[in-house]
């Protein structure tokens, strides 16, 4: 295999690489010029389709195919670029914007030309203060130089790019939550169908793409679909920005061919596990994707391979490494707290499920765990999400996966934790104990008796310890 040549990050270490002058001097905007002046939109869609570029935002949906779902007879199209980037441990979009904003703008330009969108909104999370400033300046530069605006390169194609800042909500990264938020409402995801390609922003056909997905596009136009497909593993083509953080020596974002193994990423590119320790587990692509155990670290990080160890997918390819001293309960608790905080609250299984998972893990962590909690949590996790068909969006699946993987892969450790961390303060009250024993009418502090039905099997008793 030929030596891998990074393209997405090629300007990152160049002095003033974020300026138009330097970008153009390194061949920038040539792909856009080629597309707008020598190709027609359908041809561009065709090339991207042939490259089999899959969305980098988490779901891995084929980009060209998504573009081809737009109705042929549409009058107006909107492009919404997803720069909400809030999946824990993910920061590649930020670096792409900060270090090479013109590559991003060129990607938007070509994608808009292909999809016939004359307006693009870049939805950027508000915490990206610096990226916002850099991008705003770059858009102004590009407009002044004629890369944006009216009749670009004399092609007759017009494009405006507007930056739209979020306000601190993870759910606005979900494509229809993003659209609702853009429209000035709460970021409540919509029920699909209709998909955004048919009815999206302002009820018009809309394309939602991730920042990195669009940054791949100029290179595909410049070098061709075959070049793109020569990189990566089957069904996962092209270069990918991998983020590594947590217990490693060097927290980095590095561009590699899709399909590198998690172990190689950690050892070769992130300087290995810190403090000369061993890895205990790693999050493969943002916490929504679940967990790889130490034995599973040779799994290739691509769109297909992560299903084998039971993970949800590649997600954002953001790896978080945990060393051998990390209690799994801390990981589970942190994940559950995140999703309980970020659930938008529309769907009962997600709102209540994330809330209860968080409360249970908090109780277990504090010394009030019961062995049956593990089964209850696994059961809840199996029943919340679009996969079991109980919620509107995938946040709930993402909340379920750490629980599913964590309980399945680290059950022994969790049981041990529960057994060795028992705080008497969490013991059953007299009332609870009486109910569990099957008392029908329980006297209760001189108040009218609590009328109780027959207790369910296992109430307040552990199936494992009974």
């Amino acid at each position: 295999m030929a030596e891998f040549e990074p393209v997405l990050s090629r300007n990152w270490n160049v002095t003033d690489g974020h300026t138009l002058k330097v970008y153009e001097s390194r061949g920038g905007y040539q792909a856009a010029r080629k597309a707008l002046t020598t190709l027609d939109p359908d041809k561009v869609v065709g090339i991207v389709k042939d490259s089999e570029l899959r969305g980098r935002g988490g779901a891995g949906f084929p980009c060209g195919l998504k573009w081809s779902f737009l109705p042929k007879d549409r009058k107006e199209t909107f492009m919404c670029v997803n720069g909400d980037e809030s999946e824990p441990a993910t920061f590649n979009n930020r670096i792409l914007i900060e270090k090479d904003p013109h590559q991003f703008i060129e990607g938007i330009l070509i994608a808009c030309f292909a999809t016939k969108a004359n307006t693009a909104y870049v939805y950027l999370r508000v915490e990206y203060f610096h990226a916002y400033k850099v991008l705003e300046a770059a858009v102004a530069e590009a407009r002044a130089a004629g890369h944006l605006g009216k009749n670009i390169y004399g092609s007759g194609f017009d494009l405006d790019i507007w930056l739209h800042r979020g306000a601190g909500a993870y759910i606005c990264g979900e494509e229809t939550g993003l659209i609702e938020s853009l429209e000035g409402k709460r970021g409540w995801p919509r029920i699909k169908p209709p998909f955004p390609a048919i009815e999206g922003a302002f009820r018009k056909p809309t394309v939602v793409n991730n920042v990195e997905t669009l940054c791949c596009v100029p290179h595909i136009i410049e070098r061709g679909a075959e070049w793109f497909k020569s990189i990566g593993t089957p069904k996962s083509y092209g270069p990918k920005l991998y983020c590594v953080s947590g217990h490693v020596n060097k927290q980095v974002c590095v561009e590699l061919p899709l399909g590198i193994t998690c172990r190689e990423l950690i050892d070769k590119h992130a300087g290995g596990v810190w403090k000369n320790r061993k890895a205990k587990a790693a999050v493969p692509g943002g916490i929504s994707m679940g967990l790889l155990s130490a034995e599973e670290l040779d799994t290739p990080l691509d769109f297909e391979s992560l299903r084998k160890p039971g993970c949800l997918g590649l997600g954002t390819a953001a790896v978080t490494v945990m060393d051998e001293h990390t209690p799994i309960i801390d990981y589970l608790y942190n994940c559950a707290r995140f999703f309980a905080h970020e659930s938008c609250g529309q769907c009962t299984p997600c709102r209540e499920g994330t809330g209860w998972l968080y409360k249970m893990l908090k109780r277990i962590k504090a010394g009030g765990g019961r062995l049956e909690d593990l089964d209850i949590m696994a059961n809840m996790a199996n029943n919340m999400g679009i996969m079991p068909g109980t919620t509107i969006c995938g946040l709930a699946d993402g909340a379920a996966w750490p629980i599913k993987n964590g309980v399945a892969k680290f059950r022994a450790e969790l049981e041990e934790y529960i057994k060795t961390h028992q705080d008497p303060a969490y013991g059953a009250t007299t009332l609870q104990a009486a109910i569990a024993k099957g008392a029908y009418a329980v006297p209760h502090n001189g108040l009218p008796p609590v009328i109780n039905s027959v207790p369910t099997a296992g109430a307040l008793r552990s199936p494992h310890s009974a």
Partner: protein
Amino acid sequence: MAGETTTATPMLTEAIREKIRAYIPRYPSKRAVTLPALHIVHEYFRCVPYQAMAEIAEILEITPAEVHDTMSFYGFFPQAPIGDVRVWVCRSISCMLRGGEDMLNHACHRLGIHPSETTADGKLTVDFAECLGICDFAPAAVADDGRMFGPLTPEKVDAMIDELKQERKD
């Protein structure tokens, strides 16, 4: 019904209103200007009081309830003024693994406040945040003028606080 301004003296100056109106041509609907307007108001007042929401509603020809509904969904807009600088300390996974929660506690302890509170001199608000997207600096923090901090240690948190109490850098 479009929101009526409830008092004789409007809260939003003509300059602020002009800034909000400038966003209207960017979108097919005026309501889409809600978040930009909230950001503009928040930048001026360091909070979004009810009257400001009513006035935004008037400009955008929607109801104050619609503005409030949107505003209250997001964690970003406080009702009462916050400090001159707001800093978020991350508590999500990669930062947590490297001591992020201790950094938050350390900052609050040193300032004698709880997360989400403002120091008595009105200079600094400290808040927790979920992943800030700067995990390469974990454990990390970001201030609302764009300054990033990390990887934090207790000493670096002290230095961060001293620096943030000086003045904004935007």
